[in-house]
């Protein structure tokens, strides 16, 4: 089976603490993608998280602009402090921006209605996906994720980096209740049986392929999905089609 992939969980740029030489440039990323049949990827720049979102977002936009295989996600801060400009959604299409991420623990704020209510309502209406990192300690935990979705139940929310230990007990109630919640696949692939059982209960439409590169090996997630005990059509949906559909549904205008 020749599966093509669309990776939603990748970052580029030099890490501040690169003890094991894993930092990846755009050129290195594209070379890696070509070797593994990853046709497209949604990326962010590490500067968005570990530096500051404003220069980070700008750097990302410049770096992906002439790379047709790459799409970007911008990092949001509370607008009250005027550190980042308000987004012009119409322009984001030309810049190939397909979503937003948040690192409230790293950037010291609360991701909730009080802080970002208007913005979250707008992207909920526009079907802009948010990429929420629930494990790294930089973004949100499960309590915040549950509260956020209670407040914005139609938010298109892709839960990334789910956690080393199986997270079915956290994710399945969300999949059951919120129709626009999706799971990024890398840790589902790590946890024995989690991908197959999630597909069995909620359908393959709720999972999108991600690798966690450069922190984790792309080959790990790929090999698991290729040989998972699900239908070929389901593999294709997870590997590529689901995220393609989510991006297509974004309302830029």
């Amino acid at each position, binding site marked *: 089976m020749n599966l093509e992939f669309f990776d939603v969980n990748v970052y580029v740029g030099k890490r501040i603490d690169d003890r094991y*030489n894993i930092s990846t440039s755009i050129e290195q990323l594209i070379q890696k993608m070509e070797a593994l049949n990853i046709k497209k990827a949604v990326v962010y720049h590490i500067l968005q998280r570990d530096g500051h979102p404003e220069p980070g977002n700008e750097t990302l936009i410049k770096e992906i602009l002439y790379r047709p295989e790459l799409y970007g996600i911008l990092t949001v801060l509370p607008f009250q402090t005027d550190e980042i400009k308000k987004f012009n959604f119409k322009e984001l299409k030309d810049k190939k921006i397909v979503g937003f991420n948040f690192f409230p623990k790293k950037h010291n704020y609360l991701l909730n209605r009080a802080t970002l209510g208007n913005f979250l309502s707008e992207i909920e209406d526009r079907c802009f996906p948010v990429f929420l990192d629930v494990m790294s300690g930089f973004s949100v935990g499960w309590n915040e994720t549950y509260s956020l979705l209670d407040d914005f139940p139609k938010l298109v929310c892709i839960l990334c980096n789910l956690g080393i230990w199986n997270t079915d007990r956290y994710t399945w109630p969300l999949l059951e209740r919120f129709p626009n919640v999706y799971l990024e696949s890398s840790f589902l692939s*790590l946890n024995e049986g989690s991908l197959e059982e999630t597909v069995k209960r909620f359908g393959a439409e709720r999972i999108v392929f991600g690798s966690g590169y450069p922190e984790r090996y792309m*080959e790990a997630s790929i090999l698991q999905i290729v040989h998972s005990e699900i239908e070929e059509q389901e593999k294709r949906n997870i590997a590529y089609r689901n995220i393609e559909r989510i991006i297509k549904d974004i309302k830029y205008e």
Partner: protein
Amino acid sequence: MNSLWNKFLSSGKVNDCPVIDIHCHMGPFYGSHMPYSSPDIMVKRMSLAGVNIVVFSHHYALLNPEEGNKISIEAVKKYPDKFRAYCAINPNYPDAMKKDIETFDRYYRDVYVGFKLLPDYHKYPLSGERYRGVFEYADSNGIMVLTHTWGGSVYDGATEIEKILKKYRKIKLLSGHSIHGDWEKAIEFVKRYENLYLELCAVLDERGILERFVEEAGAERILFGTDFPWFNHHYYIGALLGSSISEDNCRNILYKNSEKLLAL
């Protein structure tokens, strides 16, 4: 990328590259949904990735060895070609522990291939007096001991491990998770102590560590382990093959080193 990658990618398993998983479990566990943890399902799943043998300790045995080790023995008897077990030790129950050591020999090789220790969970240090019986028995018989090891732990971190390595030179000490996070100590110890083996469960979750292990210490005492049925074999095999180490070293890690240890 080495040629094993293409073979595993196209077929899921490779006949001339069997896999031995030296660090496994069985049965449900409190902190994690494990849908494929029964012996029957485990055997079926192992076949997908060409995993010939897994060496496990049943989760119940880690809690209550007196009862749980019996379940491990039954599982090995049911699938003698697929399973070998560790005799689980809980130092909080010294009487049961003594009995387990006394009866170990009865099951050695056909069922048990070593002991499994879990100091962090049992809240008892590796060098503690209550473990002495296990280490002395294992040392005098050259038996494997797989112990959970975690960087910074007062129970099974680097300081505790070195105390054991200094004292018992014939034991085959398998460092489960390779003193996770304290990678420099893992490298230092495996270079210094010939009876130490580094096991890869939770190591392959991060890029770059394995490459460093192999570069610094070679691949002859690195063992493939996954905590299966916690974690998925294809995921870990993919991670191993995605690293920059050679095909020969992948083969050493996937099966050759463990074959020697298990005398297969």
